[in-house]
């Protein structure tokens, strides 16, 4: 298994390099003068020229690419033009917040999605099944920011049960930390939970139709055992796949949710970068997001070897 992990980590590298290259190419297509845009409207010509030098904007694309990769190898994601603040420290401050949010959201997704999906699969064709499937469809159609706003209005503005915004670090009080994260995490998790519920229902239904499930019952195993041990392990592969895919969705949704709930996380940072046309930060955001998604895929693939013995060979 370690060999697999190492191998996959190696294949991540060309993909990440590819992403860096593509962002460099896109940047070279940027309309207008990047240095001027990044410097802002009040900048002096000297400041603009400094930015041009710092970011090697006069050099050809492949040289820029080289510089970037070289910086990366030395552990740097670049510095903010102008202020010189290392981008990595900005990200370092913001990332834990988003990780907390994403973590709680994934837990909600998993619990809600698995429970609903299993219920639908066990009561296939009956009311519970149709209710779950229909609800999941509708929920997935509601844009995440609408969900967030509705929750804020209902539960934080009209009735101040929950805080409408703000983040509290874990060390300042675990319960308050969690309490501030509930609404945003629920917002993030609903669409993903709906998707997970549908996939779980499908996978578990298909599994329970298999011959070995019937053979299991014929051996005298209790139904709970049949579904919980045999059904679950065999249905797990597509379910875990979908769960892994939600990481990307949750990262994207974090941008919206952090705006609505005033959380100074990675998503808010990304939005800020886009609003100020901060190329250096944008590149770093893209890279980190890609790493996150690829790591999630890696975890999913590793889990396959445990879940599906045929993969091990």
């Amino acid at each position: 298994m370690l060999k697999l992990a190492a191998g996959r980590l190696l294949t991540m590298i060309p993909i990440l390099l590819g992403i860096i290259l593509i962002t460099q190419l896109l940047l070279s297509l940027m309309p207008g003068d990047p240095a001027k845009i990044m410097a802002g409207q009040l900048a002096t010509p000297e400041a603009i020229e400094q930015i041009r030098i710092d970011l090697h904007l006069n050099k050809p694309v492949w040289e820029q690419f080289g510089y970037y990769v070289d910086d990366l190898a030395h552990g740097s994601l670049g510095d903010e033009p102008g202020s010189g603040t290392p981008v990595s420290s900005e990200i370092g401050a913001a990332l834990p917040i988003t990780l907390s949010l994403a973590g709680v959201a994934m837990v909600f997704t998993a619990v809600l999605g698995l429970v609903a999906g299993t219920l639908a699969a066990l009561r296939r064709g009956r009311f519970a099944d149709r209710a779950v499937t229909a609800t999941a469809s509708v929920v997935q159609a509601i844009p995440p920011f609408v969900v967030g706003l509705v929750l804020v209005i209902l539960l934080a503005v009209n009735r101040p049960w929950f805080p409408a915004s703000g983040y509290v670090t874990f060390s300042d009080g675990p319960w308050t930390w969690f309490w501030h994260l509930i609404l945003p995490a629920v917002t993030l998790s609903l669409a993903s939970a709906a998707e997970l519920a549908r996939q779980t229902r499908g996978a578990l239904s298909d599994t329970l139709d298999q011959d070995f499930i019937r053979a299991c019952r014929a051996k005298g195993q209790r139904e709970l055992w049949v579904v919980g041990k045999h059904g679950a392990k065999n249905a797990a592969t597509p379910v875990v796949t979908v769960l892994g895919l939600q990481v990307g969705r949750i990262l994207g949704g974090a941008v919206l949710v952090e705006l609505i709930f005033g959380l100074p996380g990675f998503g808010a940072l990304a939005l800020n970068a886009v609003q100020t046309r901060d190329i250096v930060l944008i590149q770093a955001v893209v890279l980190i997001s890609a790493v996150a998604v690829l790591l999630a895929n890696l975890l999913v693939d590793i889990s396959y070897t445990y879940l599906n013995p045929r993969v091990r060979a």
Partner: protein
Amino acid sequence: MTGAGRAIRLQSRTLRRLLRSRAAIASIIFLALLIAVAALSPVLMPHDPARQDLLDRFQGPSWQHWLGSDSLGRDNLSRLIQGTRVTLWAAFEAIGLSIALGIPVGLLAGYVGGVLDSVLSRIADVFLALPPLILALAIVGISGPGLTNAMIAVGIVLAPRFFRVARAAAGSVRNETYIEATRATGCSTTRILFRHVLPNSSGPLLVQVTFALGLVVIAEASLSFLGLGAAPPTASWGGMVQDAFENIYSSSFQLIAPSVMITLTILAFSTLGDALRDALGRQSRVGD
């Protein structure tokens, strides 16, 4: 010239099966109405959507303003109608770009195979490795805000999906006898792709287009909500939700109309996509 075997062509039989689903019919009617509203919007709007009336802010529904007025006294109904046109036009732009980018390249990759296919697939994989909204944000960050730029971004983000479907469809149709026959008559590759491979993969491609339209609507709404899409004073549904958010303590009523419209539109597309996929259904599913 139809092919047997695994060609999944959009035929009248499929359309008939589709029309048996009540959900599909409802979606089609809804979307048709939407298109009608968008087309007729100048006529339908009771007020100028950009006209501000600062004495009349945050009104609830009234005879003058059927859906009330927003934070600058603008008529919500007119803005909603304008938003319909904006959303549909934006969707058209984005999908057009996606299809133009993704399908030809996908068809080529699937049909030709080999190294070209590997390279193109890797590139598509790289794009698909990124969370869609982040990628869209990055492109907007580079190109600058504005609805057209936002739709270019969305178009680029969705192109890999069309690439995949087109590639899979071309790959499965590639070895059909009628394609070989066409090749034997000396047809050029482009001609083969567009006159034979494409029509016979039209089924799954259309399904993908329908789902993608739903994704575009969500993406446009999200980007506008973030202030990166349609610029004021142009109304867009996402922008109206943003307005509601910024004035959340003054009036929560503003949220309802645009949210409902966005949700219903997305629901219509996904329902239609599901029904279309089922109608094509019993044949092998190609692509995503």
